[in-house]
């Protein structure tokens, strides 16, 4: 019987020198920019393709989860901190923006940036004590805060207690809402991708790979972890701040663990460490979970099955798989 094996050949066009593409023709240019364009244009026309109120809401939620997923991917795969803090970031950002809006009268488009920066500061301070530690402490602590917050709000009846804060202003209109969140996702996605290739990003990756050598280089690993946590939590807080203006309500469900877990599932599905992958993961997972809404809490079984399936069968994720298919020609050859 003849033996066959799969041969993989890099496409010739990928001429790359240190961050600079040597581009020769339109064909090559489009080859290189096509995937990015598909993503950007695809996201931008989504609100037109799905103009119903219901689906526009879903798109906004997808974007918020996408922010969380990119934030998770940045921390986990470029800094080495496994964060379960999605719920914390959403909650802190959400409540802050709600307070800015209802108590101080700031309009949403002013309250959101303030809540983003201030919220990131608060989250970073909250997580600071466990940054010098290695291992699972960061994951545990980032998971405990949102659980604790819910109890604190309930027990002390602060921040609107179990009823939450009502009467929050919405975005000026739903198109602004849509495009604001979509542009934020694109901004942070490409911003973070840029960041991890800057010298600062190299330092962050070094903290993950080899923290002792970073210390020996005269740099505080705690400081650089804090920088990364600040950037990540800013993304989460931004998402939270948007949510309260979308739902015009801020409540304890902002600290729900879905915000911590779904981004992780989306990252695994989309391709860990690719940053774009997690966004794709959200684009798939969030709408599917919406379609399954009538199953209520049974949906968690569905996430679990998907997650286990992906981890067992194709742990590399959609994006890694797709990149390989795009950049390489595969064919079967006789041995």
């Amino acid at each position, binding site marked *: 019987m003849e033996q066959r094996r799969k041969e993989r050949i890099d496409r010739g066009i990928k001429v790359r020198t*240190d961050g600079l593409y040597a581009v020769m023709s339109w064909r090559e240019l489009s080859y290189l920019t096509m995937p990015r364009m598909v993503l950007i244009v695809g996201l931008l026309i989504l609100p037109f393709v799905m103009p119903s109120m219901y689906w526009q809401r879903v798109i906004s939620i997808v974007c918020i989860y996408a922010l969380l997923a990119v934030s998770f991917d940045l921390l986990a795969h470029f800094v080495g901190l496994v964060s379960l803090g999605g719920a914390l970031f959403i909650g802190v950002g959400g409540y802050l923006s709600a307070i800015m809006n209802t108590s101080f009268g700031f309009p949403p488009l002013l309250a959101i940036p303030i809540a983003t920066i201030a919220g990131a500061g608060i989250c970073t301070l909250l997580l600071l004590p466990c940054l010098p530690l290695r291992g699972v402490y960061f994951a545990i602590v980032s998971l405990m805060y949102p659980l604790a917050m819910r109890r604190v709000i309930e027990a002390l009846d602060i921040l609107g207690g179990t009823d939450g804060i009502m009467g929050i202003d919405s975005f000026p209109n739903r198109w602004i809402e849509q495009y604001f969140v979509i542009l934020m996702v694109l901004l942070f996605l490409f911003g973070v991708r840029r960041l991890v290739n800057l*010298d*600062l990003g*190299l*330092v962050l*990756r*070094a903290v993950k*790979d*080899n923290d*002792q*050598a*970073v*210390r*020996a*280089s*005269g*740099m*505080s*690993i705690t400081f650089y972890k804090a920088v990364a946590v600040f950037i990540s939590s800013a993304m989460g807080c931004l998402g939270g701040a948007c949510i309260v203006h979308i739902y015009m309500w801020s409540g304890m469900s902002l600290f729900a663990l879905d915000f911590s877990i779904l981004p992780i599932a989306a990252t695994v599905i989309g391709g860990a460490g690719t940053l774009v992958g997690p966004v794709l993961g959200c684009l798939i997972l969030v709408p599917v979970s919406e379609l399954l809404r009538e199953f209520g809490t049974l949906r968690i079984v569905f996430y679990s099955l998907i997650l286990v399936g992906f981890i067992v069968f194709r742990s590399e994720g959609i994006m890694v798989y797709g990149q390989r298919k795009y950049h390489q020609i595969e064919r079967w050859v006789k041995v």
Partner: protein
Amino acid sequence: MSDQPILEVKEVTKTFGGILALNRVSFHVNEGEILGIIGPNGSGKTTLINCITAFIKMTSGKVLFRGKDISGKPAHKIADMGVTRTFQIMRPYYSLPAYKNLVIPLYSPRAKRTGGWRGGGKLGDRNTVGIDILEEIGFERDSFVPYKMASTLPTGYLKRLELARCLALKPEIILCDEVFSGLSMSEIASMVPLIERLQMDGIALVMIEHRLRELFRVARRIMVLNFGEKLIEGIPEEVMADEKVKEAYFGSAEEIEEDMSHA
């Protein structure tokens, strides 16, 4: 400030659980001097460097850098003052090319302050500065070597990369943990002039070595550690003639004599 030592180690003690790894070790390093530290395996040499640079916390004792107490400061602050170290088990960033390894130390506050390699001016592009440093330390500039992934580099280059990381910080003193071990004779032969040049540039060095003959070519003062205790300190000939030292090296006494006869 003439005869103040650059580094003074006073009665440093370290215990791991019940084990006494370092027992009241004291020594000093003068400005621009190369001090050799030798001792059998497990005698506490690496632990001593770890204590000085705060990679582990010493149980008791004091370390003075130019008369200033630095014990109790965190590791990155000590490196920031210019007290740098190499690792016995090399710690490059394996997933990065050799020259990109240096972007990280060049990003440090100290490198920013000292304003780039070869003094003065604003720090240029870190990649270029990194390649310059690699050239200084013996990576062939026009070859592929500086651009190769650290994970594919042979030991000799990884040892150089360890030194390069220190040099990127413009160090005052480098504590070298066995930079010669694992190298071939010819590789060491090419490292020795490099060490000598560092000394001429005014950098003090502490060199932990098992390769005595090569060490004695560069270090004129040697300290011997055994079971965490300082046995003796002096010029190489004097130290190697000492009975306690011969005894410490035990079965390898002949080896030492052989080494000495070559020296």
